[in-house]
């Protein structure tokens, strides 16, 4: 099953180059604006002068009884915005306050991360799934419709961010007054910056004892080139100055550029699946209006639907009769499958076809991992759990896979590590599934040199997801590995250690900048493979938890990759084939052999565990033969227990994978292949 995959694409090189030298941002911005930049973005998202003539009648809260008359919100009175921040900088708390202040939710002590509905979101303090909330805000006699589109904070979820951003004209960029700018702040800033959104910097947590808003504002000025004076100091927790945020949203963020007179045209920027009502699509109306009962068509599939329900999210669904230009809401139109509401698709009236909006390109999975049920008998229930979860997370690619050792399962592709972790956590928490997840790998590429192979594959450049299918050096002119541009922000005392860590991970330093008198931002170009396993854990422990890290894709680069086999008494083990960089082969081979040695039980003969590159052995461990293996005491009272043990061993033996004459328990594969627990 291949699900529709959505994300921003083409952020690749232009962005990367740009980040290499921050000081050129402003100059480059102009170039990108007009020509080569390929971020999928819509014309109407561009900044427009925020001087608008407000002509609408005043909105009266009394009239908001059953259905809200959406025509009371002309485009000029609409603001669509997101909040972006590093984890724990207070995004969800600010959202709670904004919801309270505008009366969307009652003000109580219990409002904590109202928009974060998933258990994993609350536990990790992150947002995984974009949520939308429409707020009514009266300012200087005018009532405004403020659409808060809550976005995930991590770049792994930047496909969500960019989707949300495509429906916005501005963002609130939150920075913790204690911690200052962190790696994710930078990544998020650029996403918004690329999309030419109005950015309102907010310095949060000013109530804390060690808050240094002055210093953080200096950082913001230095890193983002936003004047200090533009920053708003708040305490989202205490509600301090939050009212001002609302004012600034109205003043600084332009209304969307859309006309009610145009034919109806809407962008699907998100969709969820509801078992009772089918697909619920989040839409941003780019022009015209849509009413309940309208017959609409999707540009992608050309299918016609009748609009059954329309409304705004406050944050709960609130049905309305129609949605008009510039507004953001939800729509239920009898779509049975998520792929019918393809994200990035354009909806229009059947009678009035329009030119479709440029869509999103599918998200590209960059981290792959095998996933298998702990117990094969749970395959079917796990399959339905994976299917249900991917319904609402279309960025996960699913490929059926099977392994002699682990049985039937899948090879799943994720946008990044956090994405993978969140997916697994949701599987476990929301579907109670018990899974084995293998060490993640990245998609390599090979430029084929053999004409025969090129013909076979139909192209010269192939992508390799499964290491077992890694083509031999002799038929390849070049291997390529995916790269990422990593941002590390750390107190300067850890620079030395972190530089060594980066070098050990084959990283190349691109840039280093003091963002204040003791904090440094470093940019490194990493092979993605080097950061997906334990890099972040090492960074955290090296920097006593102060270092932050984030990365973004940076295309592919040629690399000296080799295929490493693991042999047991000379016989290769298919499941353990690994693609490694030449420089890492020895240490990776040694580590694998050692891990395997520890989890293959002694047998009646000696076992050689070897790592090999071609015919060359690069590492070896030996599992000595058993010299004694017999229960000392076995009398009348011991028989039951002993028989149970023996039967279990015999049963286990049936499940052993035979590699030549060596019996390898499933657990050994699990221990070697599984991601190490943190």
């Amino acid at each position, binding site marked *: 099953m291949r699900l529709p995959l959505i994300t921003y694409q083409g952020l690749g090189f232009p962005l990367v180059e740009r980040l290499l030298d921050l000081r050129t941002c402003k100059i480059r911005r102009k170039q990108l604006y007009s020509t080569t930049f390929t971020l999928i973005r819509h014309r109407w998202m561009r900044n427009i002068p925020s001087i608008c003539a407000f002509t609408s009648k005043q909105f009266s809260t009394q009239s908001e009884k059953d259905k809200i008359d959406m025509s009371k919100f002309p485009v000029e009175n609409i603001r669509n915005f997101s909040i972006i921040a590093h984890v724990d900088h207070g995004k969800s708390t600010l959202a709670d306050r904004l919801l309270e202040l505008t009366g969307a939710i009652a003000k109580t002590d219990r409002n904590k991360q109202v928009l974060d509905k998933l258990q994993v979101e609350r536990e990790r303090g992150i947002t995984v799934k974009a949520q939308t909330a429409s707020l009514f805000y009266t300012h200087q006699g005018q009532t405004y419709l403020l659409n808060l589109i809550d976005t995930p904070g991590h770049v792994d979820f930047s496909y969500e961010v960019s989707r949300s951003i495509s429906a916005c004209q501005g963002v609130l960029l939150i920075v913790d007054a204690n911690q200052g700018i962190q790696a994710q702040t930078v990544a998020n800033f650029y996403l918004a910056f690329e999309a030419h959104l109005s950015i309102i910097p907010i310095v949060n947590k000013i109530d804390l004892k060690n808050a240094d808003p002055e210093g953080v504002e200096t950082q913001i000025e230095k890193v983002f080139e936003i004047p200090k004076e533009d920053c708003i100091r708040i305490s989202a927790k205490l509600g301090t100055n939050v009212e001002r945020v609302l004012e600034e949203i109205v003043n600084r963020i332009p209304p969307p550029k859309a006309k009610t007179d145009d034919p109806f045209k809407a962008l699907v920027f998100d969709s969820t699946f509801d078992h009772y009502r089918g697909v619920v699509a989040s839409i941003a109306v780019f022009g015209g209006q849509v009413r309940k009962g309208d017959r609409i068509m999707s540009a992608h599939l050309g299918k016609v639907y009748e609009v059954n329900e329309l409304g705004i999210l406050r944050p709960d669904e609130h049905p309305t009769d129609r949605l008009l230009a510039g507004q953001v809401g939800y729509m239920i139109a009898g779509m049975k499958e998520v792929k019918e509401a393809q994200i990035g698709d354009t909806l229009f009236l059947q009678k009035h076809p329009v030119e479709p909006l440029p869509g999103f390109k599918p998200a590209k999975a960059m981290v792959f991992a095998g996933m298998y049920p702990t117990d094969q008998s749970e395959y079917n229930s796990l399959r339905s759990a994976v299917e249900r979860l991917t319904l609402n997370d279309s960025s996960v690619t699913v490929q059926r896979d099977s392994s002699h050792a682990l049985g039937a399962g899948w090879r799943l592709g994720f946008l990044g590590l956090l994405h993978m972790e969140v997916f697994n956590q949701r599987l476990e928490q929301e579907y109670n599934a018990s899974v084995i997840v293998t060490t993640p790998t990245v998609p390599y590429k090979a430029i084929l040199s053999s004409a025969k192979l090129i013909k076979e594959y139909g192209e010269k450049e192939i992508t390799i997801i499964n290491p077992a299918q890694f083509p031999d050096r002799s038929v390849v002119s070049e291997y390529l590995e995916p790269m990422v541009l990593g941002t590390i922000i750390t107190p300067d005392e850890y620079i030395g250690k972190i530089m060594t860590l980066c070098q050990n991970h084959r990283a190349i330093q691109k840039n280093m900048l003091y963002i204040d008198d003791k904090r440094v931002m470093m940019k490194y170009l990493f092979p993605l493979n080097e950061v997906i396993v334990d890099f972040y854990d090492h960074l955290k422990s090296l920097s006593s938890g102060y270092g932050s890290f984030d990365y973004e894709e940076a295309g592919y680069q040629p690399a000296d990759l080799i295929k490493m086999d693991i042999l047991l008494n000379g016989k290769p083990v298919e499941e353990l084939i690994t693609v490694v960089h030449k420089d890492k082969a020895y240490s990776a081979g040694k580590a694998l052999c050692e891990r395997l040695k520890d989890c293959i039980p*002694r*047998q*009646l*003969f000696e076992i050689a565990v070897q790592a090999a590159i071609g015919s060359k052995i690069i590492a070896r461990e030996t599992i*000595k033969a*058993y*010299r*004694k*293996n*017999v*229960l*000392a*005491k*076995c*009398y*009348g*009272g011991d*028989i*039951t227990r*002993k*028989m149970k043990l*023996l*039967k279990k*061993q*015999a049963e286990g*033996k*049936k499940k052993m994978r035979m590699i030549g004459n060596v019996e390898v328990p499933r657990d050994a594969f699990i221990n070697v292949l599984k991601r190490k627990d943190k």
Partner: protein
Amino acid sequence: MGDVMLAIRKCGAGLRRCLPWSRYILRYMSAGMTGRKIPAAPLPSEEASLYVHWPYCLKRCSYCNFNKYISRDVNHAEMRACLQLETEALLRVSQVSRITSVFFGGGTPSLAPPSTIAAILETVARRADLPVDAEVTLEINPTPMGLASLEEFRLAGVNRFSIGVQSLHDEALRVLGRDHNSQDALHTIAEAQRLCPGRVSVDVIFGRPGQTVESWEAELNELLSACDDHVSLYQLTLERGTRLFKQVEAGQLTMPGDDVTAHMYESARRILGKRGFLQYEVSNFARNGAVSSHNISYWRAGQYLGVGPGAHGRFIPHQEGAILREARTQTLEPDVWMKEVRCRGHGTRRRIQLGHLALLEEVLAMGLRLVEGVSHRLWKEFSPDADLQQVFGRSTEVQDLQKRGLLVLDDRGLRCSWGGLALLDSVLPPLLLQLQAYHDHQGASG
């Protein structure tokens, strides 16, 4: 016979506690002497051995996870009565007509009053045929107290002592949490040997924390100079939940590695052989043919009754018209067990019927512990339709084990080689799988 006469004389001399048992001996002997016919050898299912479990200990050994209770106020009268009642109950339900051997284990059965031992033996003799030369073993803790009661146990009818010496090093005894020292042990061996010459066994533990191959060899040699004709040697196994386990976990003690213990086992087997002790089972060695017939009957998959808290038994409950053997377990906790024996008339907590395959699996797993292995005759007793060759002969895995020199299948039967015996637990799983495969195949084809 002289021993028995001695016992009678001693009883007559005033040890009234032994009277019931001695009366039985008198009766039995007089019957024999008056030429009354001794019943013909019963069918295998009509005979069984008897295991009696004494659940109490004075002190917890650091390595022991066995079913035992440290109790200061044991109700001896009630325990005796219940052991007797349960013995009767099991003899009745099994309809066993002859008890071939009795073993008093524990716990610390040498803490039981000799009169209790006598009473149980008397009950057995009253309800079934207990041949006069039947092996009656009692486990002894070699404390001065244990030493002091040896003679009384002898008079109660015990004719074999198994002494838990464990080590001749006092420091090791302390680590193991034993409540005796090496001098106590040597005295106890000597006294037991005086009472039951040629029928004394010693238990010894190797692979102890801090032990080396050299110190083990020296200790074993010393022990062999002092002991009688039977030695059981056990590698110390760390059991979860014991004090020793925790100490090793905490790094306070270090267990010798696998290679060291394998070496210890090998050298012990060699030393014992040199000193005339023939190995007859994985952990058991005997000189002058002094094997334990009670234990051999376990390894030859004989029937046995288990009496006492937590005791296991395996027999056919003929009284209920059953034809399949059952694995039975008695209620674990002594007070509860006694209550149940009183109220329900029996102390059996769990009964599991052993099917044909399960029984054959036990025959195999237990039989291969013996040096003699599973003879064709023994196998035929349990598997009249398929001989060893039919079941195992064609398996490539079995052939592989034979090629590796670990297993022998010949005209005597199926057995481990010298090397194979030390690796039995690696040899058994493929054999069990083969047995199961053969059984399934037979089932499928008819």
